[in-house]
């Protein structure tokens, strides 16, 4: 028996909104420690990794680990039927081929449940090693979304370069070039608005705009976003989901022309 209850069902809506550009279907691995999802987009250029800890749920029970393959568009349809302030309960039997989503309205005068068929997805799991990154940048998630949107008008890729002076996002194309520089903020009054940079070694990497723009669909989940970079490993874009877990996107860098 699997049962997970979350008062803030809107969190699931936001997660689905954040990943539906990249994934059409995905397996949710449920265990005693929580719900995890790891999946690559079709091109295998990016990877989504979601972790929702069991202690972040208002009720959580998982007698036996189970994997639930779901069509994310259909899951999003079901969550569209819920109000933002509804409580959601996700239920499945141990060897079930269906999952049930139950929504309870705040005053409990309305209960709706939706049953969805599960899919058997044969998905590859990647082993992601723990990495000490050369640069870790924290900044307001809305700022990051804005930069990605603005720069993608100029070219297909964004160069992110991090030095001890700050972080620079640049792009260029037929129109011309665009550069946005952010320096570390000295004002720590409002944590959410801070830009902080932890740098061991300077790094410059190039990424496809299309993917960065997809990742920023997760902006409503968190006020801050964390970018972690090292040479020769994918970029990690991480959104912390308060009290519940995190949503991470991994993006492989573009192949530099002189790399050939």
């Amino acid at each position, binding site marked *: 028996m699997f049962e997970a209850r979350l008062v803030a069902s809107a969190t699931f809506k936001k997660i689905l909104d954040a990943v539906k550009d990249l994934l059409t279907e995905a397996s949710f691995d449920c265990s*005693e420690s929580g719900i995890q999802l790891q999946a690559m987009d079709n091109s295998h250029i990016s990877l989504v990794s979601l972790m929702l800890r069991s202690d972040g749920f208002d009720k959580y029970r998982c007698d036996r680990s189970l994997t639930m393959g779901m069509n994310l568009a259909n899951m999003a349809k079901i969550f569209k039927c819920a109000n933002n302030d509804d409580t959601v309960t996700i239920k499945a039997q141990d060897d079930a081929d269906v999952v049930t989503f139950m929504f309870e309205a705040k005053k409990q005068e309305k209960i709706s449940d939706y049953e969805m068929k599960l899919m058997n997805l044969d998905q590859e799991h990647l082993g992601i090693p723990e990495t000490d990154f050369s640069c870790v940048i924290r900044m307001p998630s809305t700022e990051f979304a804005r930069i990605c949107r603005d720069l993608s008008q100029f070219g297909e890729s964004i160069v992110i370069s991090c030095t001890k002076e700050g972080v620079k996002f640049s792009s260029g194309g037929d129109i011309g070039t665009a550069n946005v520089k952010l320096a570390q903020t000295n004002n720590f009054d409002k944590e959410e608005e801070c830009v902080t940079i932890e740098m061991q070694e300077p790094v410059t990497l190039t990424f496809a705009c299309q993917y960065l723009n997809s990742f920023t669909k997760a902006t409503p989940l968190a006020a801050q976003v964390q970018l972690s970079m090292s040479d020769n490993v994918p970029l990690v874009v991480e959104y912390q989901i308060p009290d519940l877990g995190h949503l991470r996107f991994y993006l*492989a860098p573009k*192949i530099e022309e002189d790399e050939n």
Partner: protein
Amino acid sequence: MNHRVTDYFPVRRSVRKTKSTVMEERQRTLERLLRCDVEEGLEVRYFADKGRGVVTSRPFTKGDFVVEYSGDLIDLNEARRRELKYAQDMNTGCYMYYFRHNNQQYCVDATAETGKLGRLVNHSRTGNLITRTVSVDNKPRLVLIAKDDIKAGDEVTYDYGDRSKESLKYHPWLAY
């Protein structure tokens, strides 16, 4: 052209878990069992030579939780007070289990006839259980864990650990 994430991260062929995940899952399972007061796969048997004892009704695997030594969790002062009281009645068995947890001394007093099985597990210096302390909701609990694989029908025992002169005088069986 773009690299792929699979260029950097290996595809995992098995769903092996890291050691820390395994430990974490084990701890959670234990906490759940303790919260629900689970006592399964055990029954009380009367032994002619030593009175009541606990035997298994199903096999246990090494490392499995077997039973909790449950009783009143008390501090040392309260334990001393109770020891004095119990000493006046020779029929009271010894059910006081002293232990350390996070650098603090505690005692679980299982003298009261509660129907719980942990208090009925007999002593043996070469027992098949070991005791461990686990924190559940910030309170230490004493659990008995299978030291080896245990067959169904075996008596479960553990080493009470008390070999003080005083105790041996009244309970000579503690030496074996």
